[in-house]
């Protein structure tokens, strides 16, 4: 059994190491003459060069800055709209159906329209990013607030909470897990949208533009390095969101998971 050959913690590395070995062998023994087959060491060199010259940081900085601004706008608006829809049945009935119809439109279909309205620069990109973050935040905020248990609201009523107290002490803490889930999703979507916006509205610096450049010049090493950076950023954003979520919800204890 393979069980006995490789110790468990190392098993995850087996396939990547094998793949890299095959890749290296393919280059070393010249199995293919395609210019696309670059050596792993070449990718590493390109990576080092990009990091040392700071080019990758400039591109990444531009992308991340847009990502964060767009995300902040979208998530902020999403929280407000979600809270309104969740707290008011009238607002839900007035706005909800339109919102649910609008959200069916595939996100990227907005880009050509936004490019006409906002141009090809950062304004259009940020507008698109905020749209990407907006929808999941609204949905999850709405659902979180709607699922505040009715008997708890009754307790708040008995205790004669003011509206501010009701929000601060009951509704927001109770809806927090769902709201954070929405923000987390918004962050992921905004990152996806950051890449999409750079592909579709090609202008200015950015990490995706780096990859487009690489593709146009057939610089496979550059493209592979770009894929790596994009994955790393996605992973980091996920990790940060997870940490914040864990922190913010730590007071809840583990009772839910433990039952």
């Amino acid at each position, binding site marked *: 059994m*393979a*069980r006995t050959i490789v110790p*468990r913690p190392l*098993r*995850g590395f*087996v*396939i*990547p190491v094998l793949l890299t070995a095959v890749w290296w062998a393919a280059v070393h023994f010249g199995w293919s003459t395609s210019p*696309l087959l670059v050596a792993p060491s070449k990718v590493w060199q390109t990576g080092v060069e990009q990091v040392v010259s700071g080019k990758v940081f400039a591109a990444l900085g531009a992308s991340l800055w847009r990502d964060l601004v767009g995300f902040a706008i979208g998530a902020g608006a999403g929280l407000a709209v979600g809270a309104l829809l969740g*707290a*008011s*049945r*009238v607002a839900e*009935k*007035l*706005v*909800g*159906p*339109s919102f649910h*119809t*609008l959200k*069916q*439109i*595939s*996100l*990227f*279909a*907005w*880009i*050509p*329209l936004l*490019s*006409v*309205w906002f141009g090809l620069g950062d304004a259009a990109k940020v507008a698109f990013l905020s749209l990407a973050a907006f929808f999941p935040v609204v949905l999850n905020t709405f659902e979180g607030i709607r699922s505040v248990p009715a008997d708890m*609201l*009754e307790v*708040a*009523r008995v205790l004669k909470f003011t*509206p501010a107290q009701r929000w601060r002490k009951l509704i927001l803490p109770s809806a927090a897990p769902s709201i954070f889930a929405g923000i987390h999703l918004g962050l992921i979507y905004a990152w*996806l949208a950051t*890449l*999409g916006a750079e*592909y*579709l509205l090609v202008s200015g610096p950015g990490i*995706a533009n780096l*990859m*487009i450049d*690489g*593709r146009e010049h*057939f610089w*496979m090493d550059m*493209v*592979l390095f*770009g*894929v790596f950076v*994009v*994955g790393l950023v*996605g*992973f980091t954003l*996920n990790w940060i969101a997870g940490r914040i979520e864990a922190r913010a919800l730590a007071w809840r204890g583990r009772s839910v998971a433990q039952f």
Partner: protein
Amino acid sequence: MSRDLLMPLNGRAVDATPARLAWRLWFAAPAWPGLRDWLLAWPLPLAVLALWALAAHLEWIAPQVLPAPDAVALTLKESLLSGELWANLQVSLIRVIAGFAVGLVGGLALGVAMGLSPTVKDYVYPLFKAFAQVPVLGWLPLLMLLVGIDEGLKIILISKAALVPIALNTYKGIQGVPTRFIEVGRVLRFTRWQMLGQVVFPAALAPIWNGIRYGFTHAWLALVVVELLASSEGLGFMIVYGRQLFQLDVVLAAVVVVGAVGYALDKVLAAIEKRLLGWRKEAF
């Protein structure tokens, strides 16, 4: 107790002026709640539409920036009648269904293998996670170099988009089957296949189905992106084409169709879900 009757939505204290009272009563207990909801859904879109029509007809906005709604409706009707829209829609649907089918089979296989076998999980899961960290759009330039911009690229990207959530949810769903259920199966001396067919899969069906729905949403998203970026037919292409010619009525008509198809597909999946998982709800 009479306060209870007036208890509004979300338990706000009631300051009962007669007009408010009447509104609350009508809102809280209308004769036909369905009709009320239906009526309330219309004012906003109609107002937006009216404002849009007004803006277009008084020429507040150039038609190249925002064409009049009737122009969009006309374009939509013409492209429906000429068959152009149907042709593009058909291309897009075939692509998304083919890509989704590949992603579905691959995702289910991967998810089941990882869920049932700890050995497979140990070897594959870390790589899978790394693979999932790079969004569809991150793989695009790489794939364009490797497979060109033909049909293969679209199918691969769409199937990747569908595969990740399906595999992840299938794996987590199988992992999450309560041990108690397995124990009952053991007590009943189920064979391996009985255990899978009658305990594990029914118990994991809800998360798996969730993954399938997510997978489809992602596949649809990926389809539109890849058609916007590299295609000469399909709905996404219609949007890009209209944009390039500054024919925003074509763009908007295609956007409407993208939304309508997304809506219809969502409804189909919801109907399947009702049949597939309906039995679960009866328990409550």
